């Protein structure tokens, strides 16, 4: 176990309304999410001395958020980044609290991901070429979407390990099933059967539209503090057992090597940090920008051996009563999309047993894993307990 184990906790979570067209700026969404998280923790805005966020030039700043909450924090930070940024900022927050610089940090992600700046849409091709590492080797060939880039990894991995289209479908069907129990999920009321899935044409082989995450306007926020201060908060703290905040693929140009992903390097570190093994995990939030990304991470994090991941999901293990209930609010495939933070909110609620006796609660869950995936190149993860 690492020296941070059980010494820091997530004490508040909150979100704004989720929609296709918020009609407001990301600042308004961020304020709603922040107020909800602060209230959830039983704190006041002035108790937060650090504000952090991640964005892709599509959001408001931490400074703006604090200003409009009427407080003046000691520290603000906004980073450019998508998946795994939550884990990275939690690690930064812990470091700053550990050093005595800060006491309590609020981390948020706010975006009009559907009505405003859409991820992977409307970008200038020359900007993409110039800004993406090795961009001239992909953009002239029409490869501008993460679905295409990750698809190259997926086709090869499926070929090597025997994963089929139906296995991808089991990820989608399981998560859509969770969404039917979550009235706030985008695809609540829109269940997906395997037959429907298999009849859906490819958008970009091997992916159908169901294998792609959705797009939504929303903000999410979480609050991190020390275990001592967590005792004074209103809700039951969820303790951080261990983290591996941001590991990289060995080569900067990940499209030169499809055989490994950054998650392969995160897994041993996060388990060592937390002092637990894959079999100790009761509930999971696995970054799901694409269905295949879940399968590849189940392999990386040791939930099923390479070559048996397809069977693992086909047996129903991602479902609420499976061996590893995963993305139990519906995930980014069917609940909402904030570059992963909605999955963090859900695992905190599961570990608090906030859903009580309802059918949404994973029974007796004590330990959970939350993974982030910026791409095959960068990943992070944390293990939490109640």
């Amino acid at each position, binding site marked *: 176990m690492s020296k941070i184990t059980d010494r820091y906790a997530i004490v508040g979570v909150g979100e704004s309304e989720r929609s296709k067209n918020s009609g407001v700026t990301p600042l308004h969404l961020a304020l709603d999410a922040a107020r909800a998280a602060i209230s959830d923790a039983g704190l006041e805005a002035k108790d937060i001395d650090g504000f952090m966020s991640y964005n892709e030039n599509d959001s408001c700043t931490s400074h703006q958020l604090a200003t409009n909450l009427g407080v003046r924090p000691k520290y603000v930070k906004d980073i450019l980044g998508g998946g795994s940024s939550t884990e990275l900022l939690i690690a930064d927050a812990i470091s700053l609290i550990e050093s005595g610089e800060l006491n309590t940090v609020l981390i948020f992600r706010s975006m009009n991901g559907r009505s405003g700046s859409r991820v*992977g849409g409307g970008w200038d*091709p*020359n900007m*993409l*070429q*110039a800004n993406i*590492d*090795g*961009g*001239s*080797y*992909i*953009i*002239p*060939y*029409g*490869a*501008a*979407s993460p*679905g*295409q880039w990750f*698809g*190259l*990894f997926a*086709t*090869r991995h499926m*070929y090597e390990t025997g994963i089929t289209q139906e296995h991808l479908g089991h990820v989608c069907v399981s998560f859509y099933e969770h969404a039917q129990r979550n009235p706030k999920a985008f695809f609540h009321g829109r269940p997906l059967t395997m037959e429907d899935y298999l009849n859906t*044409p*490819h*958008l*970009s*082989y*091997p992916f159908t539209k169901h294998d792609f995450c959705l797009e939504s306007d929303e903000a999410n926020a979480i609050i991190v503090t020390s275990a001592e201060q967590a005792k004074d908060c209103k809700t039951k703290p969820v303790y951080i057992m261990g983290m591996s905040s941001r590991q990289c693929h060995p*080569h*900067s*140009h990940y*499209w*030169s*090597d*499809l055989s490994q992903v950054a998650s392969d390097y995160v897994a041993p570190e996060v388990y060592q940090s937390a002092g637990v093994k894959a079999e100790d995990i009761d509930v999971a939030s696995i970054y799901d920008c694409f269905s295949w990304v879940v399968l590849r991470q189940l392999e990386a994090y040791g939930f099923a051996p390479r070559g048996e991941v397809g069977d693992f999901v086909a047996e129903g293990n991602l479902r609420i009563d499976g061996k590893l209930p995963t993305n139990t609010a519906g995930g980014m495939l069917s609940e909402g999309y904030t570059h992963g933070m909605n999955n963090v909110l859900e695992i905190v609620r599961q570990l608090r047993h906030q859903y009580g006796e309802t059918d949404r609660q994973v029974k007796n869950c004590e330990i959970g894993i939350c993974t982030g995936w910026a791409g095959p190149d960068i990943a992070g993860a944390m293990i939490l307990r109640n």
Partner: protein
Amino acid sequence: MTYQKPIPLKNIDNAPYWDAADHHEMKLQKCNDCSNYNHPPGPGCSKCGSTNLSWKNFGSDVKGKVYSYIISYRPFLPGFQNDIPLVIAQVELDNAKDVRIIANIIDCEPDKVEIGKSVRMVWEDITDDRALPQWKINE
């Protein structure tokens, strides 16, 4: 009609590759210290960090095998609306096994693509002075 799709942008790191492509040849960056190829090229070797790099010319006879591929049924960039379905493949080179190069497989029915299929590099003249390497299935 002018070429509608993105044209490879040359920069200080990739210019030798694209200059060679314009002459229907393939050049790859190679590390003189660890002997690995470095593709996509850069100012430092991604295997060992060395800056002792040079370029090797493979000429115009470049063959390989499909290592992975996708088939897009929607254009994800402007200019590709007439190229649907679009096959994008990563190809392992026969003469440099650790190098894999992404391009379209042109003149190819999507159901003819499979991993391991033998392909050869061809060059599309896209403007008066620019050419784009592509893959074609070896019949």
